[in-house]
């Protein structure tokens, strides 16, 4: 009775057929690497937003200051129409759409780059 058959033990190495896991795991598990990935996406998107808002502020936002400092510049007429009316009444709208369009394209590019980065497989 003392000689018991030892339990059978299976000896294995690391599973070579296991699929490498994508880096999305780093984000889910909030590893330091995952945090760096996320921080870089946020930085890119915030920097993009800041650039677009800066352009908006410099182009449209400077008009009141210009009118205050140099009223003569605002009072220019072209073919009898005050230029400021053409700018504030018409030209600003296509300009806003253009800025918005540039933003949407760049923001989607940032996201695509992020998807490519974290979908890559770990070796």
């Amino acid at each position: 009775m003392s000689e018991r058959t030892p339990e059978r033990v299976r000896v294995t190495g690391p599973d070579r057929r296991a699929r490498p896991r994508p880096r999305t795991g780093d984000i889910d598990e909030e590893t330091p690497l995952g945090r760096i990935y996320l921080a870089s996406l946020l930085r890119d998107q915030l920097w993009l937003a800041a650039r677009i808002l800066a352009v908006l502020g410099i182009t449209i936002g400077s008009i009141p200051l210009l009118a205050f400092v140099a009223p003569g510049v605002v009072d220019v007429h072209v073919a009898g129409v005050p230029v400021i009316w053409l700018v504030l009444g018409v030209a600003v709208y296509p300009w806003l759409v253009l800025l918005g369009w540039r933003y949407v394209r760049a923001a989607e590019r940032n996201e695509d780059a992020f998807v490519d980065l974290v979908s890559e497989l770990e070796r």
Partner: protein
Amino acid sequence: MDLEALPGAVAVVVVAVATLAIGTWGLRFSRTTSDFFVASRTVNPRLNASAIGGEYLSAASFLGIAGLVLTFGADMLWYPVGWTAGYLVLLVLVAAPLRRSGAYTLPDFAEARLGSRGVRHLCSVVVVAIGWLYLVPQFEGAGITLAAAIDAPRWVGPLVVGAVVLVNVSSGGMRSITFVQAFQYWLKLTALLVPVAVLLVIWAGDGAPRPVTPQDWSMPLLGDGAQGLYSTYSLILATFLGTMGLPHVVVRFYTNPDGRAARRTTLVVLALLGIFYVLPPLFAMLGRAYGAADADTLVLELPRLMTDGVLGDVLTGLVTAGAFAAFLSTSSGLAIAVSGVLTQDVTVRRLPDVTAFRVAAVIAVTVPLAASLALPDFGVARAVGLAFAVAASTFCPLLVLGIWWRGLTAAGAIAGLLVGGAGSVGAVAWTLADDASSGWFDVLLGQPAAWSVPVAVTAMVVVSRLTARTVPAHARRFMVRLHTPEALELDR
């Protein structure tokens, strides 16, 4: 009723019937609570953008801008510019993350982000306050319009608009209102575009008389000197930043299928608003050329001033229809937003889902309706402008910091909402009570955004820093949800 009033009466009846018909047709698609609140998140960008445009272009846009420009000139162009640029700011700072947050309303967003019931309740109070501050002038504008168009007593307009909105909102919810709003954008655009085209042809035929303008009509500053400069920049801040905090604007973003669709929707909205806002200043220019006197009803009366007979009647009917659509669509959007918040925070605890929404809709509409009947001289354009200042001083900092800064805490958010809300609401109350505007004190209170927004942001940041240990544990996970594209399979 005399013959003068016929085109206006026909227009009002046609718009009301069409609105109810489209709303009822949309009802066939409304089955679940999700349909009621967010149209089950299946609205495509072009339809959604038309609906946002339809909802956003209120009486202030349709009637107000032309009248303001007629009277005060180029400085008033900042209103439409700001109302459009507000969508660009919204696009770059909040559109996609707000959709990805997966929340139904602003209080939902605040609670999900900060994990605090207190913040939620405070946000609900602010939503209802801004919504009602914005609804009262819509109802009053309807009274003024119907009085001008069909000689009705002043109380008729608010009652008609209130009734149509209530029927539509409580029967179909968000899904049916989406179709109604989209229809009303195109109606409003047509109702300005066709008359202005015809009137420009008539103007050219009359030998293109030059607009008679006072000296500083073409100056883009509100008032003189440094005070004018301050007021202009404060108005720019209020409109650029306030748009994202308006409850009826934000609620629309939850109906997009995903974050990218939310961005594209906003881009289409920018284009639709730009097309529309080119038109009202043309009415003002023609009004100046033909000696129009009454600013409030310029858009309604210009066609008959320039041409008579059938053409004048048809054009009058068309602009009246557009004005009426403006009241209906903005009021519906606000009623939906306020009802959504009231449902979740008040009525849903006591009643089944859809009944709760209907009861909330009745409350959301009747309170401002009663207020507009009780206070007939609240000041239409002013109240709308102040609603933007309150939104910019409360929800704008909450959304921007909540989306981009992990360090925001519940205590910080409450501090900022209280400081920004009290500052801007106090300024609003002072301005409405005290009519004389002279000296820096009145100027600062008349346009509060330039100081109340920085104060609110500072309060949020400083108090959050002081309570840094209470940053919610799930904040980083929430950032992942807000900023990563839905295509990635992540644990959200």
